[in-house]
């Protein structure tokens, strides 16, 4: 768990940080500090084992059947990176405490920062490649969130989107590459992949894997041609730039390349792809950096160039080059993090980062000036500083590998060195001279604690630069041996070797850089120059924006030309697809009759003549005669119910019959809100041609659809049924489910989890209907009392519904139906009780009970029923769901799986032996939910008439139904 805690603690801290109040700046910082310190402690504990050359592993089962396990693995390289992430993280947290303004929502900031830390540690510690990619994408995501932290700023949003698009796309390529790699090796385990280097390089898919993985690494490390996202990521708060976009996240790409060096490197493809990208990046980045006017922009391009340097070293791929690459990763992280923090301090103190404005800061910020000069010198590669050492190694490698044939490599290296001296000079120029324009704020030295991280990093730069063997030597050795293993070369970190070629190159770079800066400043107006000379046309960001614009435009074009918001064409397409695709898939069945068919029963045929006639007539009438159409379609429903009864499905017949009843009532209640549609008395004999075409087309689709459906049904019916699981249910319903009605046992026992889901859906739909109706506003022309009820010739129009039923013309029906209420209740109970053994059950009983209540509503009106009967459908819903869940959970209490049934036989006085399965209680829950659903929907709909009468037309005020009490 020790390794897992390294990743889990930051994520837990992130969650905790998110829950703190807005203004808890100190508490947030303390939390983040504690989390990071805890990580450092754990990493420190690992040191003895790691320094002894051991590889620590922790494995957790994830998808063992697919050979995927969560695997954490620490070797020297991973340990060094862990320390880098955590120690820079600690300093950044400290710095951020003072950098962030009290007005910023800090919980979000620290939460994302800690989440990033966890993800980055996940990348570093993953022992499984797929898992590594998951964490890799998480770092892209947290980076996106942090760049967009000030989301009210357009540049932050733009930069965040650009960074996410580039790095996450790269991450997807990486995933593909990792899958190819896993396919070659046969495992995603890092150890096995690293051991299989020979096999991978010889495999025919090697190039595919290499290109895909390189795409992932190069996008992440902002390498040419994907470098453009990094400068735009500078819209993030400076602690983020210093942490993610210089010290850690952008190093993930080069880390991955170093990590996979044993598996992938050593071929010409590796040298050219990785090295080529690196050389371009290093020159372009360094050159553009000279001409930046934004302090952070300069540092961003310089970061790109230094990452390019590391990439070149990895691309060269000799063991010594890898040593130099790892060394430079560490050195760059130290001086660049401190430079970013310095830039943040200057921004914080003066209110601007514009190099054209900033001058003469050494007077107000003497200490910061000293610190910045030291770290810029490290960036420029001045002797006795850490940057010098790794740059010297870089020069040595290019001279050695390039030799006489590739002499341009040395030239490129020296040119990059010159450029970096020039932009470092540009950076420190802000401390000299005299200001010409007033700063937005009067600067003074920042708080001690804000400067402390910078001081510490500068001290590290000096220590590494002066006595590298003592300070960084052992740590570097750890990482190097873990990567290179047996091929670890002899290397010497001493600041002084001899008068040799690399030293000469350093001298040329330093002096050439100074000359270049002076020339640029004096003759090319460097200070005010707007464009980068020569290469300003090659704007990656512009290309990105244009391609995004092109994609958006194309999507709009497609949507406009191929999509529609209209329902009818969509339904037509669906119907056509349904008619064409399944027959194509099925083909014609081989044999048409294989089983003896039933003799057609004339009575059965007769009822279906009626059923089909009803369906066709309903389709015909639905336009002008809604009531008639509804009745006709109800007729088809009744025939369907009769069919179920005829064909040995009594439960279905009962349910269909009851649902038919409530559906009809439901739609009747809705009809009132539709606009009147009167059939024209005079027929328009000239139907427009387009209308005629459309109708013919729909008719053809309908006829063909019906035919296909009929043929399909017939084809199925004449084939013998394959062996299904039906036998299982039939044989076990009585012996194990304790009921002889197999359908009911199926619903409440064997497949009760489905039923639980179904009653949940019912409740959700009922509540949705209720919620939608609360916001219902009728159209103006249907808000008033309907004409039928205003007919003065009808004496009933002057009576309320309750009066009609109690004294008026509904008196007989009223007495009759009220007397019927207890009988229907008993019938419902009867169907419920016998459900387990004979047709019936919770669904049917619930519907019958709901109809019993509904009849009362229809008779005497909403007001009268609700003044006499307190029915709370919400509670029925809640009670029913609770009961069903409690039955399921009850099984847990006895150590059985969820929803296991138990049957008890209880002897009751008078009643005799009663068969009482726990499914009975479950069925009671179903009953309650069905009653609640039906009542809630129908009653809510019925109430609309009352509301509409109370507030005709505008409907501005809220209403009685809103408090839910009058239902």
């Amino acid at each position, binding site marked *: 768990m020790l390794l897992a805690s390294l990743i889990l603690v930051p994520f837990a801290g992130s969650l905790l940080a998110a829950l703190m109040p807005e203004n808890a700046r100190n508490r947030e910082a303390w939390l983040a500090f504690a989390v990071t310190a805890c990580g450092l402690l754990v990493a420190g504990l690992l040191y003895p084992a790691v320094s002894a050359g051991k590889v620590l592993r922790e494995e957790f089962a994830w998808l063992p059947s697919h050979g995927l396990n969560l695997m954490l693995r620490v070797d020297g390289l991973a340990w060094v990176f862990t320390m880098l992430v955590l120690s820079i993280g600690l300093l950044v947290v400290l710095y951020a405490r003072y950098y962030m303004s009290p007005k910023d929502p800090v919980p979000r900031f620290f939460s994302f920062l800690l989440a990033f830390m966890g993800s980055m540690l996940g990348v570093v510690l993953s022992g499984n490649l797929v898992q590594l990619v998951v964490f890799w994408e998480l770092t892209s995501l947290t980076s996106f969130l942090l760049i967009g932290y000030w989301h009210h700023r357009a540049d932050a949003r733009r930069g965040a989107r650009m960074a996410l698009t580039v790095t996450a796309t790269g991450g997807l390529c990486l995933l593909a590459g990792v899958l190819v790699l896993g396919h070659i090796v046969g495992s995603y385990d890092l150890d096995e992949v690293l051991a299989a280097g020979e096999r991978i390089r010889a495999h025919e898919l090697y190039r595919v894997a290499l290109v895909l993985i390189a795409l992932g690494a190069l996008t992440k490390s902002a390498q040419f041609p994907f470098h453009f996202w990094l400068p735009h990521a500078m819209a993030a708060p400076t602690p983020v730039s210093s942490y993610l976009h210089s010290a850690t996240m952008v190093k993930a790409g080069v880390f991955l390349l170093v990590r996979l060096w044993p598996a992938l490197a050593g071929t010409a493809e590796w040298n050219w792809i990785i090295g080529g990208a690196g050389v371009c990046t290093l020159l372009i980045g360094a050159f553009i950096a000279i001409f930046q006017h934004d302090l952070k922009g300069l540092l961003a391009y310089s970061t790109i160039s230094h990452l390019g340097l590391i990439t070149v070293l990895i691309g060269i791929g000799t063991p010594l080059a890898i040593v130099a690459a790892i060394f430079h990763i560490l050195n760059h992280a130290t001086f660049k993090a401190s430079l970013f923090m310095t830039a943040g301090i200057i921004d914080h103190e003066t209110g601007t980062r514009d190099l054209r404005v900033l001058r003469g800061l050494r007077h107000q910020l003497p200490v910061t000036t000293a610190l910045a000069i030291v770290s810029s010198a490290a960036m420029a590669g001045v002797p006795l500083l850490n940057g010098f050492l790794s740059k010297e190694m870089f020069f040595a490698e290019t001279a050695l590998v390039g030799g006489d044939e590739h002499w341009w490599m040395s030239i490129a290296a020296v040119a990059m060195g010159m450029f970096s001296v020039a932009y470092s000079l540009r950076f420190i120029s802000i401390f000299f001279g005299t200001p010409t324009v007033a700063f937005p704020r009067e600067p003074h030295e920042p708080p001690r604690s804000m400067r402390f991280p910078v001081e510490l990093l500068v001290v590290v730069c000096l220590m590494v630069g002066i006595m590298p063997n003592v300070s960084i030597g052992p740590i570097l050795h750890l990482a190097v041996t873990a990567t290179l293993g047996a091929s670890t070369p002899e290397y010497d970190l001493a600041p002084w070797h001899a008068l040799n070629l690399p030293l000469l190159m350093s001298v040329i770079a330093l002096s050439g850089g100074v000359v270049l800066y002076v020339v640029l400043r004096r003759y090319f107006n460097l200070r005010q120059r707007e464009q980068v000379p020569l290469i300003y046309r090659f704007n990656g960001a512009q290309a990105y924006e244009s391609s995004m614009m092109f994609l958006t435009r194309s999507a709009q074009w497609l949507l406009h030309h191929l999509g529609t918001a209209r329902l009818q064409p969509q339904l037509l397409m669906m119907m056509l697809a349904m008619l064409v695709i399944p027959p194509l898939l099925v083909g014609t069945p081989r044999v048409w009759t294989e089983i003896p068919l039933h003799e057609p029963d004339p009575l059965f045929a007769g009822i279906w003549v009626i*059923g089909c006639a009803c369906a066709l007539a309903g389709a015909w009438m639905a336009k002008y005669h809604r009531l008639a159409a509804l009745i006709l379609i109800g007729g088809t429903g009744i025939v369907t119910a009769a069919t179920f009864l005829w064909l040995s499905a009594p439960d279905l017949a009962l349910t269909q019959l009851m649902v038919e009843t409530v559906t009809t009532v439901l739609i009747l209640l809705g009809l009132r809100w539709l606009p009147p549609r009167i059939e024209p008395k005079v027929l328009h004999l000239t139907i427009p041609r387009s209308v005629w075409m459309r109708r013919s087309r729909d008719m053809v689709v309908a006829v063909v659809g019906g035919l296909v459906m009929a043929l399909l049904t017939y084809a199925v019916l004449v084939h013998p049924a394959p062996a299904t699981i039906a036998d299982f249910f039939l044989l076990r319903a009585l012996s194990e489910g304790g009921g002889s009605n197999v359908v009911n046992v199926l619903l409440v026992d064997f497949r009760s989890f489905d039923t639980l889901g179904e009653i949940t859906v019912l409740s959700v739909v009922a509540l949705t209907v209720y919620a939608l109706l609360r916001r219902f506003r009728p159209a103006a022309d249907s808000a008033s009392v309907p004409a039928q009820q205003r007919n003065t010739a009808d004496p009933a129009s002057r009576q309320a519904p309750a009066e009609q039923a109690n004294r008026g013309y509904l008196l007989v029906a009223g007495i009759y139906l009220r007397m019927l209420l207890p009988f229907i209740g008993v019938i419902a109970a009867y169907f419920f009780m016998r459900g387990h053994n004979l047709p019936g059950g919770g669904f049917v009983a619930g519907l019958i009970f709901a109809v019993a209540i509904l009849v009362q509503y229809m008779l005497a009106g909403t007001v009268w029923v609700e003044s006499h009967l307190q029915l709370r459908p919400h509670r029925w819903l809640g009670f029913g769901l609770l009961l069903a869940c409690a039955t399921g959970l009850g099984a847990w209490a006895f150590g059985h799986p969820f929803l296991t049934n138990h049957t008890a036989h209880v002897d009751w006085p008078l009643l005799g032996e009663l068969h009482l399965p726990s499914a009975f209680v479950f069925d009671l829950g179903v009953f309650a939910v069905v009653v609640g659903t039906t009542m809630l929907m129908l009653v809510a709909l019925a109430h609309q008439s009352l509301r509409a009468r109370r507030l005709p037309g505008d409907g501005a005020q809220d209403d009685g139904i809103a408090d839910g009490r009058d239902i």
Partner: protein
Amino acid sequence: MEIVFAIAVGVTFGSGIWLILRPRTFQLITGLLLMSYAVNLFIFGMGRLWVDRPPITPNASIDPLQFADPLPQGLVLTAIVIGFATTALYLVMMIGARGLTGSDHVDGEEPRK
């Protein structure tokens, strides 16, 4: 029997298709009702047709071949009830859209002439 059943499913489904391609919301809801009958019957038919063989087992030692298939019946039973719920939801959408837009066209606006 089979032929009648198949024709019944076909006619009901065809009427449903015609209705759901119409422009008015009420026609759509009736079309969906008819289609749900047809689809329920179709799924029910997957267990083949059985006359006088309801899946009610008198005792534990029975021959399963003598009973109708209970599985499609169980599925259709839940489908009927869910169908009722979705009809209610659609109805509320229908009258709500009519209240909001003033039109009972399925697109919420009268077609342009």
